[in-house]
């Protein structure tokens, strides 16, 4: 791999983490109690979702964030099988903190769900210290790295946020993260947005399928055989992600890679009940539809970004500052 260009090295890295995320998601479904074919279908669904199709190819931290968010959920499921292992929960909490600070809420919640309050607090402190020590080691190589707490730029970012529009954020959170609507270029040389896109019938049909699956999964999550600690944690994490999406009202799709796998996990719970076959059928149809639609939308978006980048390179033109990389990809 030595001598590879920057874009090639990124592609390999992105592919590696996307594969790791897929494997972790599959393992999570199996831990949850899904059968092998069910886990394969729902892993496929997560992989063809709009969030995965649009975020796995760009140089961003969302896939890594999504991967680390699975660790506390996995720890809670593993704790159900073999309870009381402090190291496991502490490490899961540290992993959840390692990429995105907000994901640590899942790690903290996991600790509080599997042990007493005092111990959970101690485990969370230990996770913080582990990540801090690793950060200090990292700072030896990258001296300009900012410490995870007390980041003034994050405060500035939050202060400059626009007023959130709840209906738009809800639409993106629940629907667009799975099925991408027609991507709307803001201008000929500007970025893309789906924040205020209007709905249309071809997508509405797929959204309806997805919502049905999601509702069936939600019902089964609360009434089915899933461990109560997992049930509470998944609900809390989804609610927490939703709160964050509503709070940060700029471009909700930006963080969809974190929330979408959680929603697919909820949907996958539908296979744990009597309506497993129906759920599998719905999921299979949805996977095919989502794959076709999202790939088509991705091609259009990539074409637009390539054109825009050729006209003028403006780093904040797309959702993220990754226009350089994305523009070099084939449409």
């Amino acid at each position, binding site marked *: 791999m030595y001598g590879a260009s920057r874009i090639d090295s990124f592609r390999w890295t992105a592919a590696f983490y996307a594969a790791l995320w897929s494997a972790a998601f599959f393992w999570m479904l199996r831990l949850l109690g899904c059968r092998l074919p069910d886990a394969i279908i729902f892993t496929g669904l997560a992989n063809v979702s709009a969030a995965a199709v649009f975020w796995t190819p760009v140089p961003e931290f969302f896939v890594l964030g999504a991967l680390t968010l699975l660790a506390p959920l996995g720890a809670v499921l593993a704790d159900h099988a073999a309870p009381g292992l402090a190291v496991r929960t502490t490490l899961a909490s540290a992993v959840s903190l390692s990429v995105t600070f907000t994901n640590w809420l899942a790690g903290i919640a996991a600790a509080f769900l599997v042990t007493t309050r005092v111990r959970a607090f101690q485990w969370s402190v230990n996770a913080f*210290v582990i990540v801090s*020590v690793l950060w200090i080691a990292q*700072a030896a190589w990258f*001296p300009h790295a900012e410490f995870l*707490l*007390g*980041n003034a730029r994050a405060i500035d970012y939050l202060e400059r946020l626009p007023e959130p529009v709840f209906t738009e954020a809800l639409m993106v959170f629940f629907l667009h993260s799975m099925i991408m609507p027609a991507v709307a270029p803001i201008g000929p040389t500007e970025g893309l947005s789906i924040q205020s896109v209007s709905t249309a019938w071809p997508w509405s049909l797929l959204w309806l399928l997805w919502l049905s699956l999601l509702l069936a999964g939600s019902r089964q999550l609360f009434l089915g055989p899933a461990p109560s600690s997992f049930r509470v944690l998944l609900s809390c994490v989804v609610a927490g992600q939703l709160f964050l999406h509503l709070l940060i009202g700029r471009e909700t799709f930006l963080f969809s890679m974190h929330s979408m796998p959680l929603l697919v996990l909820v949907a996958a719970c539908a296979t744990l009940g009597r309506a497993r076959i129906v759920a599998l059928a719905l999921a299979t149809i949805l996977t095919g539809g989502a794959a076709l639609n999202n790939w088509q939308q991705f091609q259009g978006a990539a074409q637009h970004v390539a054109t825009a980048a050729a006209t003028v390179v403006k780093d904040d033109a797309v959702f993220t500052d990754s226009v350089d990389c994305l523009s070099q990809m084939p449409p």
Partner: protein
Amino acid sequence: MTRWKLELPVALALVLMSLILTLSTNRLTAIALRPASDTPVVNDGVWFGAEAVDTVNRLTVPEIEQTQTARYPLSALWLRLPARLLMRAAPALGGSELLGYLTAIAGAIWVGALFLILRTCGHGLADAALVTLMAMASASFVFAFAAPSMLAFAAVTTLPSLTLVSISRTRPPADSHIVIAAAVSAALNPANAGFGVVAALVLRDWRRAVQIVGNAVAIVLVMWSLQHLIFRTSVFPLLLQEQQAQTTDPVTAYRHRRVAIAASTVMHSVVVPGIGVASSKGDRSGPIVALGGVPPGWRGVVTVAGMLVWTALLAIGLWALTRHSADTRLRVFAWSALATHVTLASTIGPEPLIQAVSILPVMVVIAAAGLWWRPRAVRVLSAVMLVLAILINLWALRDAIELASALTS
């Protein structure tokens, strides 16, 4: 009952004496280190490498970068914030004057805490007062608290760990107290963190000690983050290139003389052998006032006598602590803290005098341990040491101020 009635007046008298001493010396050094308010001082480390002018500026001047947090992690939160608030409350007070007061207060806390530690170690009121006076007249105390410096403030942070170990003789401390003491020890000078770590290891089994140290690290990091939100220019501890340069490139004159620096830390912290000038380095380049040759540089009969008496006191104390003390924790703590500090001082270098004020309470506790074995002899030696220390160190202080004036003018 009578003793307890006397306890508070004696402690207050010691604190008052400390305040008078440090305020007086601060006034003298302020003139020497900063001849005129608008004079740019190129050679700031002139006072035994203490960077007095930089300390005053960092803690009092508005809008100045807080890069010193790389070496003194919570200095902006713990020192600059109160200093700036005090300056707003009393606008007539100059930065240098205010820092002089704060340094004197730190010195008073140091003296009061040392007296308390000696009392909790089981020494009588008169013995504790005598040994505290001796510590107050020591070279490290006189020179460290004579000018504002981060190292002087940091010296106070080692005392909670020593206090907990001495109190543990009668009352075992709670985990939370050890965590706080460990966090405090690392707050202003990471080199002092060893005190907290050693206290945790002495007071608890190693697994619990690791957990306590981890919690202390978490507290310091959270407080640093809070500090970073208030002072956005603050730098993460140990990450500044300057810090690395300091630890890897000691002053040329002292390079390869680590044994001499270690010996000087122990031997010269109570009586200085003499005052001289050494070369310095970096952006504050220039000569600095330093101990007159780090290897025991004997200068006069009185100095030799002072060194011998201090050596005798330490030797008797070490013997008593090793052979006669029932308190294993205090013994292990004293040995480990001393070894850790001496190792660090000889690694970091170059001028051990100001840094030695952090370890001085441990050395004083070791010396005072002799009172358990040969009380009369140690009392006499301590009294002689007190007189000699006053004579030698005040004489050396006059020399140092003259030298500093010459170097900064």
